[in-house]
C-alpha cells in the first residue's frame, strides 16, 4: 500500500491536525477546477457552488480515509462526481459513457471518395496554421472559441475532455473518476479533441493571430 506522496501527505496531515491555512490552501488550489467540473453536471453557477461546497465537506469528513492511492486532486474529483451523480439520479438524469458512438472524428466529406484514384486521402486538407509551436498562447479570442466548442460537446465527451486536457488528469485517473472503460475514454477524447481542433481552424487558418 502506498502512503500519500510528498505534498499531498503533508497537506492531509496538516488538515487533520486542524491547520486552517492548509485547508484554505487546498481550496485555493482546487476550487476553480471543482467548480468547472460541477458545471458539467449542473447548468447553473449557484448549483455548481453548492455542489462544490458539499464536496469540500464530504472531503473533510473523509480526510482520514485518504490513502494516497490517487493524487489529492483526483480524489477530490472522484468525490465531486459521486455527489453529482447521486444528485442527477434523483432528477432522473444520467450521462452514459457506454456508447461513445461511431461517427468519424473528421467528417467523411473532407476525404476523397472510394471511387477516387486516392481513396480516403484529403480532399479538403487542413489549412496550415499560422502559429509557431513554442508560441502556445491562449488569447481572448481563442479562449472564447474553445469555451464555446467545449460547451457544444455532448456531455460524455465534454467530461472526458475537461478532465484530461483542461484539468490534466491522465487516462487512468479519468477512468477511475468517471467509471468509464479505457477504450471508451479514448474514443470520447478523440472525438472531443477533433471538434476543438476544427473550431480553432477557423481562427488560425485565416492567419488572424
Amino acid at each position, binding site marked *: 500500500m502506498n502512503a500519500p506522496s510528498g505534498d499531498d501527505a503533508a497537506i492531509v496531515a496538516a488538515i487533520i491536525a*486542524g491547520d*486552517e491555512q492548509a*485547508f*484554505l490552501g487546498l*481550496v*485555493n488550489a482546487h*476550487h*476553480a*477546477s471543482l*467548480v*468547472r467540473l460541477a458545471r458539467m453536471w449542473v447548468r447553473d453557477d449557484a448549483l455548481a*457552488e453548492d455542489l462544490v*461546497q458539499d464536496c*469540500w*465537506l464530504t472531503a*473533510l*469528513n473523509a480526510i482520514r480515509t485518504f490513502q494516497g492511492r490517487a493524487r489529492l486532486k483526483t480524489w477530490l474529483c472522484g468525490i465531486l462526481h459521486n455527489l453529482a451523480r447521486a444528485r442527477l439520479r434523483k432528477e432522473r438524469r444520467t450521462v452514459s459513457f457506454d456508447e461513445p458512438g461511431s461517427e*468519424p*472524428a*473528421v467528417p*467523411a466529406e473532407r*476525404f476523397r471518395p472510394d471511387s477516387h484514384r*486516392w*481513396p*480516403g*486521402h*484529403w480532399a479538403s*486538407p*487542413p489549412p*496550415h*496554421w499560422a*502559429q509557431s*509551436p513554442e508560441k*502556445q*498562447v*491562449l488569447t481572448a479570442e*481563442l*479562449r472564447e472559441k*474553445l*469555451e464555446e466548442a467545449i460547451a457544444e460537446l455532448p456531455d460524455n465527451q465534454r467530461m472526458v*475532455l475537461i478532465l484530461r*486536457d*483542461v484539468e*490534466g488528469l491522465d*487516462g487512468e485517473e479519468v477512468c477511475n473518476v468517471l467509471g468509464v472503460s479505457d477504450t471508451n475514454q*479514448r474514443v470520447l*477524447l*478523440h472525438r472531443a*479533441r*477533433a471538434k*476543438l*481542433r476544427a473550431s*480553432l*481552424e477557423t481562427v*488560425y487558418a485565416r492567419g488572424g493571430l
Partner: protein
Amino acid sequence: VTRPVDLSCKAVVEMLTDYLEKRLPHEALVRLEQHLVWCVWCDDYLEQLKHTIAISGQLPGQQPSLETVEKMKAMFASWKGTK
C-alpha cells in the same frame, strides 16, 4: 519516394489519439509514422491537435470568491469542533 498507400489519411486521423496515448500496436505505429513522413497534411493535422491540447490546458478557472472563502473558514471551524 514510394508512397505507402495502404494507410489512408482518413484512417490516419482516426488513429492519432491512440498514437498520442502510445496505445498503437507496433505494426500500426510503424505504418502511421511512415505515413506522417510523407503526408504533410496529416503531419499538420497532428501538430494542430497537439496545439489544441496544449492551449486547452491553459484555460483559466475561476478563483474562489471572498464569500466562498468565508464559508470555507466557517465550514472548517465547525468540522474541527465536531471531529
